[in-house]
């Protein structure tokens, strides 16, 4: 599974950081920062899906492999 964060779309709702802190951090302005290099470890697949399906700006995309 791969995860993609569109920083242009991110408006800092911080839902991903709350739901999947292993995959997303936030910067000093509250903007999301992806912590993994695209590939999501198997034990975090559910959290990645959760983050994507709770992003109000549709800024997170998941590509299932």
């Amino acid at each position, binding site marked *: 599974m791969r995860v993609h964060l569109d920083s242009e779309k991110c408006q*800092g709702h911080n839902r991903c950081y709350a*739901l999947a802190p292993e995959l997303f951090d*936030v910067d000093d302005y*509250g903007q999301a920062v992806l912590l993994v290099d695209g590939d999501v470890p198997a034990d975090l697949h559910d959290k990645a899906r959760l983050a994507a399906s*709770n992003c*109000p*700006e549709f800024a997170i995309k998941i590509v299932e492999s």
Partner: protein
Amino acid sequence: MTDIVDTSTIAAAGPASQRPDYVPPTFGTSPEGTHVWQRVPYDADDYGPVTDFTTDFDHADAAFNPKAPQVWKELREGGCPVAHSDRYGGMWVPITHDTVHEVAYDTEHFTSRAVVVAVGRPGDLALPAPIGGAPPITSDPPFHGMARRLLLPAFAPKQIEPWEPEIRTLCQELLDRIGDVAPGETVIDAAVQYAQHIPVNVIGRMLGFPAADEALFRKFVHDALERIAEEPGTREGMDDLGIYIHNQIQDHRETPRDDLTSYLLNVEIEGQPVSDDVAGGMIVLLLIAGIDTTWSAIGSSLWHLAQHPEDHQRLLDDPEVMTFALEEFLRAYAPVTMARLVAKDHDFHGCPMKQDDWVLLPFPAANRDPLQFEDPDTFVVDRQENRHAAFGLGIHRCLGSNLARLELKVAIEEFIKRFPRFELAGDVRWSVGQIRGPRVLPVRILAVAD
């Protein structure tokens, strides 16, 4: 820990302009005729109370907020994604998630220079867009981004998280102040005795304003958001707010301290210090926007729990579910509707929009769109897919959303911990206008924690 002031202490002062120490307002409304405010061609008396919201929509009719979800549903079932009302000189109301999203993202055709639909709108001499009276909420790009970047760091998650213990203590103190409770008998007002005190105390502390002014802040909120049918220039309360902020700025200039007000007085935009007008406008925004919004969210959530013991029990049994419940409270009972003015004539999905028409931006309606949410009128305490728009969408995403979430979470947690069972005990009085929430919320306490 500062004292919490009783709500009944609003000073019975006369109109500001009649006081000897009156100075003309620095921010907010100015007297009619200066073109700072422009009267829209609308007199509520010509229309009277709404009898059919699907043909004569008025979000500020007293009958609207009590049944808002039902009205959104009826409008949606009418099949048109954008409603129109002749009120307020012409108002468009997108009601689907798609159209609300589109308006929120389109800063070219929709300006934020006014965000509260009223009988007055900014005139030619108002602080021009892109700044507006209370930046960055009233700003458009590119100024918006600069003003917002000044404020974002103060409200980022890692800055807000440390406030949790203090908010928790505040909630516990408020619950202590309720006094002796006889389970099964005692009825309390969860809005007046609890919810309304939380955000006002928190933002007052963050701004470094005296705790004794709590009741005054609530009056400012009422003046800014609920008295929208009054003539522009006659809203004395807005003058009072301007004077109050002016005095706080002076005080903080003379005695800087470690708070948001001093922070804002020292920030720079493009290498220049911000003017008192801009700093004052930002303070107005922080003070007004953070108060009745969060108070409404807390009240609506407790109103839900008072009628849904199964959800209440689930939160007690499984505190982890709060992560999802919090968002579901925000989705189902989103307190905030915003507004825009049409920036230039254009066609929007077949709607002939004219410059200066109002556009209501009802995030609560978007949150109940069945195309975006499965079974949207059902409260699902652990809803897993929830892209709700309670904090808005696009560049104006609520700046204080992290603080609001923290206050809402802690307020609910402490209330249900203290009162493991409670029920609705009478009529709820809902707010009037764009911020929706209970203003009177009688609940009977059925159990008290040991």
